[in-house]
């Protein structure tokens, strides 16, 4: 199975996302922001970083890139798309997910091992988790505060469109502790924390068992393989 990983200028975690895809047993395919062609991939990841420097607003300039035209159409058609951190911001700027992401409430960039509650498992990227499962993956951002209008929040809560919530610590002031969202079809998921940094023992978050042994992120990538087998 082929999973595309998009590189914009300023993307940072593309190689990490590719590694995660490989460790999950699929083939990563590098996609370039200036090309419309998706090279027949079965799913797409918009990885973390500072695309176009994150100038103006995070993800705003990337949302205008050529490759996004195709991805937006394909996402409406059901293509699984995962936006991680900057990728989540791009999905929001592209209106594939609602709301906005603003400067962290405490005004600092923050890098920490973050606990999340899985709030929805009926998506392309979360079906290998159990509902309500607590997972730990790294979080690292300066503009991760999720905001939305009251009625949007109501809709998100009412329709079960919240994919992840922060547990124990709300690291950035996000409304309703929202860490990640899904669209109504479940093919598009975006979140601020980084599953691709928790896929390889020795390089993930600390766990009770051993330093840096956390691999809770791997299920994101196996989920999409499972989703495509079923589809």
């Amino acid at each position, binding site marked *: 199975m082929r999973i595309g990983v998009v590189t914009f200028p300023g993307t940072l975690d593309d190689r*990490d996302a590719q590694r995660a895809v490989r460790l999950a047993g699929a083939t990563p395919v590098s996609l370039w922001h200036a090309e419309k062609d998706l090279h027949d991939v079965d799913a797409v990841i918009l990885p973390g970083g500072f695309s176009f420097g994150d100038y103006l607003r995070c993800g705003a300039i990337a949302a205008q890139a050529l490759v996004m035209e195709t991805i937006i159409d394909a996402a409406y058609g059901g293509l699984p798309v995962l936006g991680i951190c900057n990728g989540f911001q791009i999905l929001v700027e592209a209106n594939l997910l609602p709301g906005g992401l603003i400067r962290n409430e405490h005004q600092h960039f923050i890098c920490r091992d973050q606990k999340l509650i899985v709030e929805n498992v009926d998506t392309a990227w979360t079906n290998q988790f159990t509902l309500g499962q607590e997972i730990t993956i790294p979080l690292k951002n300066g503009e991760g505060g999720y905001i939305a209008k009251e009625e949007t929040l109501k809709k998100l809560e009412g329709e079960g469109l919240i994919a992840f919530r922060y547990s124990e610590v709300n690291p950035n002031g996000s409304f309703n502790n929202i860490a990640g969202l899904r669209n109504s079809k479940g093919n598009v998921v975006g979140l601020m924390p980084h599953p*691709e940094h928790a896929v390889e023992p*020795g*390089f993930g978050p600390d766990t009770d068992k*051993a330093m840096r042994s956390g691999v809770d992120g791997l299920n994101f990538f196996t989920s999409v393989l499972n989703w495509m087998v079923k589809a």
Partner: protein
Amino acid sequence: MTKNISVDTTKEAKKTPDKAQPWKELGLKQEEYDRIKVILGRRPTSAELAMYSVMWSEHCSYKSSKIYLRQFGEKVTPEMRKNLMVGMGENAGVVDIGEGWAVTFKVESHNHPSYIEPFQGAATGVGGIVRDILTMGARPIAVMDQLRFGAVDHPDTARVVNGVVSGISFYGNCLGLPNIGGETVFDKVYQGNPLVNALSVGALRHEDLKLAKATNPGDLVILFGARTGADGIGGVSVLASETFDSEGPSRRPAVQVGDPFAEKVLIECSLELYAAQVVAGIQDLGGAGLSCATSELASNGNAGMKVQLKNVLLRDESLTPEEILMSESQERMMAIVPKKDLKAFTDIVNKHEVEFSVMGEVIKEPRLYIMWGDEEIVNVPPRTVAHDGPVYERPVAYPSWIDSLKANSASTLPRETSEEALKSQINQVVSSPNQASKSWITDQYDHYVGGNTALAMPDDSGMVRVSEETGLGVAIATDANGKYCQLDPYTGTQLALAESYRNVAASGASPMAVTNCLNFGSPENPEVMWQFKEATAGLADGCLELGIPVTGGNVSFYNQTGDVAIYPTPVVGVLGVIDDVARRIPSGWQDEGNNIYLLGITRDELDGSAWAETIHDHLGGKPPVVDLKQEKALAELMHGANLQGLIASAHDLSEGGLVQAIIESSLRFGVGARIWLNEILERDNVDLTAALFSESQARMLISVGREDDVKFVGLCEARGIPVLRIGVTDSTKELIIQDVAGWTIEELAREHEGTIPELFG
């Protein structure tokens, strides 16, 4: 838009030999100006004057330090050179780490800009050092930062701390380079002159090594990256104001603004150019901008260059030729490209939407010609600009104050013996700004990006995987103790070396090479020059004894507030290699029921200690004794024991002594322990204060699984390393030091982690 700028040409210079020139304002001495005239056989043009003045500045020419830095290349054995692919003198040293891989690393200062504008100063400091690493043909893989700030209670400190930390965070995070460690120290001597040093490390395959050389006549000289603007020109405006009429800009900004996004693109673009093998030589543009890049490339290649300055892409059309030559606009590189490869070069830079311009050609004649349209404005031998600058043997003087400082030992300070008082002192030390957790700072740095970080803050060294196939990796630690160096710069510098060496060994890597950034006061002060002489001798002798070479570094002079110099602060970085990062050692206890051992001997060494500073506000006496043989033995023991998988955790002892190490080991993973000190008191004949707080060297705190005890102790004894079992980890979530104090882990965490956020959060 383009203004008609009247330029000073070589023709004009010949015609008007006696024209008054602002050499003094540009920082040149009379002899230096005279020497330029001798070299050229005429007065310099204003462009030439700009080039010489900046390239002959202390910062670029190392004129006061050169005679001392030489010993780093001289006090070495062939064995030490064995793994050195590129030594001192290039942009950064390159070390062979095996399996066809090499790494390059270097630490550099950006102190003065970081005081004027902390955010941009620190940010561009990171940007600059990363370009140095990129220039060697390497992919940068990590950064570190070494910071010294003023007193925590001074009203200006928060401005500098917040600006510097967010500047480093902004630039490093945006480049996608994990920050894997550093140092943070507060002391009033840095109040008006904070130190912001940044380190970068990069990895490359042997065959990808690049050098800053222009050798082949006919190759093209190409400037690529950001456009050139008026950043960081500062002093050169003197020249501008001379050549400008009244409407010209009178004062150019002295600061540079960094664009990490542009640098990230530049990194990917350069690596693609290297892979396509279309660059014959490459140089980053840092201090002294184009003046430096053109003259160094030509001089290094024993060739010359003819370039057209009007081809430089500008952000601001009003720049004069002198300003263009001096501009320190960031995120620029200069490549030497064979003509046949221009098309391939163009395709790659276009793909990345990076702008470039062909400035000229390499020529055989070792002369640098710079044209401004049809006018020749520079015609110089490049060596005289880049390498044959002035060299000074500045006067040195034994400091008048040092004997009385040394006589004032901390050994006479009052000591407490009651449990209550000792606990209070321990709490004061571990919560003091210098000993407290720096996580408020390090949490602002991304240490995950890249997916290769095996160790980072708060472990003893940062460690990154270089080869994903085999797990081959490198570890780096840096240290400097200004107080020790103030007491005795020779010993103090060796102590910095010893500590970073020990940190690398503690994390399971084998120390291999050294870099340094020597932060000192004014070289024109003979007492400072004496400190510098002692420090460099200490470092060179220490490296020789440990058998690891200095591969490069940086000197920063004139760090002072008014006439008061900072403490000599030579930051020493040690790089080690580990064949598989899976074998790295954490700095904290992970499991219950492990035995805790103290390696090494404790002496009553409290002079210059964290205890003396925190409890008594005292600095005086002699720093701890250095024993590099013992450090080496310790490192070898660690290597051997780790290969056998005997070590569950290791933490070196340094500032704050044993108790600091115990508390940090406990807090790392929140594991409690019971500790006893009575055997230390007996064996080493010291009291409780010394046992807790002494900063004796060559010591480590090790935890070992019960099943490995006999083997581990046997190894220590075989190597002559003093070893004492002083405790055992448990599941109580409490730390108890018998007859001294006890805490819950929660209470300890509050003490250790609360300080910095409260001050700056």
